[in-house]
């Protein structure tokens, strides 16, 4: 575990710094109340009222997130395979080709069905 301790040390340092800065930011600056300034900034027009919870995300983003999950998981499996590749011989190659081809099939489907289109 000791390998991870330095990361924690640096992480604490980073969190401390960032937290400190954010808190300091609200303390050091001047406070001049101005009604207009507290509105959401929309280039000067009347702000659009936002529903609680920040409104809804366009569904495209969900789609992207789902696709990301699919591919990210592919990567999970690719890494150990890559590391052990030299030990696995042709077997490793064949299996991974099958695996990647499978993912590519899904990929082709999504592509053709417009899952990757942005407008």
């Amino acid at each position, binding site marked *: 575990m000791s*390998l991870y301790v330095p990361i924690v040390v640096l992480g604490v340092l980073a969190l401390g710094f*960032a937290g400190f*800065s*954010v808190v300091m930011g609200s303390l050091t*600056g001047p406070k001049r109340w101005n009604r207009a300034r507290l509105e959401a900034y929309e280039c000067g027009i009347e702000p659009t009222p*936002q529903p609680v919870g920040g409104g809804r995300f366009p569904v495209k983003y969900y789609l992207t*997130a789902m696709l990301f999950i699919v591919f990210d998981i592919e990567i999970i499996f690719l890494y*150990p395979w890559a590391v052990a590749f*030299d030990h696995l011989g042709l077997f490793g190659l064949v299996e991974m080709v099958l695996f990647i081809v499978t993912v590519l099939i899904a990929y082709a489907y999504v592509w053709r069905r417009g899952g990757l289109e942005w407008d």
Partner: protein
Amino acid sequence: MNVPTTHLLADALAATPRTEQCTGKPYGLGSFGCDPWWLVGAKALVIFVFLLLTVLLSVWFERRVIGRMQLRPGPNRAGPFGLLQSLLDGIKGATKEDIVPRGVDKVVFFLAPVMAAAPALVSFSIIPFGGIVSIGGHKTPLQLTDLPVAVLLVLAMSSMGVYGFVLAGWSSMSPYSLLGGMRSSAQVISYEIAMGLSFVAVFLFAGSLSTSEIVNAQAHGGTYHFLGMTGHLPSWYVVLLFPSFVIYLFTMMGESGRIPFDLPEGEGELVAGYHTEYSSLKFLMFYLAEYINMATLSALCTTLFLGGYRAPWPITGIWSGANSGWWPILWFLIKLWMFIFFFVWVRASLPRVRYDQLMRLGWKVLIPVSLGWILFVSAVRALRNEKHDMRPVMLGAAVLIVILLVVSAIWERASGSGKAGAAEEAAEPEPDPMAGGFPVPPLDAPHYHGAGDARADKSAEATRA
């Protein structure tokens, strides 16, 4: 070890080279985890300070360079060559009013900048600055720590950072911020896939995910016959795995969210994206995160593709001591700043791309190309491991690649025109993607395919053509 895949993966993880821990010989994973606590603290602090300095410096650097490229001087008042400019900017930021708009989700609004900045800093803990040196009697590597899964840490931290952006956008309760946050996350995760894929070939050759091991693996490239010369070429993966490197460069730009891929904060459309509502030091935290990310990505690229802290080939040929002692830090910094310069250069030269172009590049070009490249590399390597004659294989692969490229180019052209056909009809009432107050994609809507109605037929014809 019973399940085949279990078997395979377990073996794979176990395959990290085993060395006695803390002997320092050979230099690798085994050299880590034996520092005394004060050394760990000192190293962490040094990295922290180093990063802050890098940010200050690179902000100045960027402005100067861009200034030069645009035939103007850039900041030159504060300090020699304007070096203190960015520091002063920071101080000024701290004295500005910290505006918390009405209606924001206060807790998240405060947390978001922290979540953006902190992970960026942490990534750097696994970047090797150099080999083993002696500090206070301790032999210790010039690297905070290393893990068997070091590169994953970087990916994990960049994903953590995304939370900062998304939450910033979400908590601001403003349409621009929200859209910026969403875009940012979509962009980062899209490019993260390609980035993750670009690493695979590196791991394949290095046989490890540990950064120090990867650097080591690039030291001894074996003997390559190059222009009739036999020598120990520094087998940097930038040479060996050039396509991976190129892909990484693209994804690096995408991940950093800088021009030409700075869509999340595209001023023209989104004011300032997810940090529109931020001011004062909170805003600076996002700023900080961006520049640290830039440094991290550059450092990672250096480590994975440019032999890390190792001196480049001609120097090692002349000077055998170039890779020992404290010298490697120099080589590392040179390479790092090369990349930072590259970032700046790109920023100065290229315009911002459109969002759909950005996503298209990520999803439709980088991902398939990297998958193909992985298949190719692994096939070649597997066949070489099995002692096959590589020349016909290479030839065949080359032909195949050319064919694929041509086909995909034609395809792209064709689907592009199909898209144009569809766009032509955009005036017609399209199915409203936000119908009923909730966005569900018409995944199967006629205009995506063919058949159905006249206009879809047209586009289908175009597709077939």
